[in-house]
């Protein structure tokens, strides 16, 4: 067993865990944050994407012990004080989700992109979300949603910050 401290969606968690526990298992099984999904075994689908210290990462390919000391943001942590994140609003407004299974991972990856590139082209967006598979939408509306969230985030008076700044 290993003792770790992680901050998940702003709340510090101290836990004793098996080293073989994956971060996604910690989130889903120990913390019951089931908005982060598992869609494949091989790091392709991106359904498990979360932010670790501000970077989008596949939580099925990270040991929970590796996240010791990190700040993690999951889909449950995107809305602040009941206010949806612009990406959440955009996904709904642009009909960028159907079954909704891949949606949390896609929104998280989009946030990583938009935090670093305020005005991405459609090609930038498509390239950035290559690691997130969606079988329902054909991506057309997802691209529109990310584009429209970019516009909103650029126009926002205070820049949106999700998770922490990169520390390492």
């Amino acid at each position, binding site marked *: 067993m*290993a003792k770790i401290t992680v901050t998940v969606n702003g709340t510090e968690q101290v836990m004793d865990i*098996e*080293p*073989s526990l*994956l971060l996604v*298992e910690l989130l889903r099984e120990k913390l019951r944050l089931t908005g982060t999904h598992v869609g494949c*075994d*091989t*790091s*392709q689908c*991106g359904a498990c*994407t979360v932010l*670790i210290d501000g*970077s*989008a*990462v*596949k939580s*099925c*390919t*990270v*040991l929970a*012990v*590796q996240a*010791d000391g990190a700040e993690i943001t999951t889909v449950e942590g995107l809305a602040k004080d009941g206010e949806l994140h612009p990406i959440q609003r955009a996904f709904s407004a642009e009909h960028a989700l159907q079954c909704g299974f891949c949606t949390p991972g896609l929104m998280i*990856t989009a946030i*990583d*992109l938009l935090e670093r590139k305020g005005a991405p082209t459609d090609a930038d967006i498509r390239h*950035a*979300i*290559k*690691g*997130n598979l969606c079988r329902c939408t054909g991506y057309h509306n997802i691209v529109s949603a990310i584009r429209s969230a970019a516009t909103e985030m650029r126009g926002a008076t205070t820049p949106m910050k999700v998770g922490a700044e990169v520390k*390492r």
Partner: protein
Amino acid sequence: MITHPFTYAAPTTIDEAVKALGRSRDAKVLAGGHSLIPLMKLGLAEPELLVDIGRIASLREIKSEDGAIVVGALATHRSIADSSTIGKALTALAEAAAAVGDLQVRSRGTIGGSLAHADPAADEPAPTLAFDATIRVIGPKGRRDIPAREFFKETFETALGPNEIVVEIRFPAPAGHAGSAYAKFPHPASGFAIVGVAALVAVKSDGTIDRAAIGVTGAAAGPFRATAAERALVGTRGDASAIGAAAAKAAEGVTMLADLTASSEFRKQLVMVHTRRALERALERARG
């Protein structure tokens, strides 16, 4: 899910890490984990001990030092792709790092992990070879510097000795009017390189090619230097016919891999085409 139990150590210095590795016959270094963890999930790797070097902060650095660019083993693909130091001097490395997997994998996967794992379809071995980088490793017997050409063996094997850890990769900054580029044909599903070619060229003031180095990954059991193509290029003016003739030699003498996605004959074609494309872009930059 990882079903097999293992012991975990998270040292904060390289010395501690080397010592920790000595505690088990079956220990593995964990860097970003993006090669190792997928294998462990599939049950295709079952190390008894994982030594996580992720807490050794010094290994994340990218810096210029004595005419070389030194990339720490824990530099992520993403930090390499985004680094202006690398982008300017080692364009092919930046492009190769940007071509790894996807955004999430690049956020976490490291160059040291990738080189040590030596997947024959990994991207970064190609520029590592083309730039004649040196891989610095530290082990129980101390430090040694392994030239890239000696580092890579075949499929998943390197010159790393027991309990040695890759700590940094030293890329000599190309001198003179040099330019480089990486051209890749990715596996459509996994994103690994079916073929990846890193080309570095330097031109003299009269426009003739002074130096050419071509590293190829994905195509064979291990990454290789396309030496026949390099030789064919040096001394030419790098016009279309010279580049074409050189590219045609890029797979010379190398046994090409074959799999569901690409036969050996298609791989050979891709090596030639991507060598030409990498050379064209590299030359354009060299003449820049």
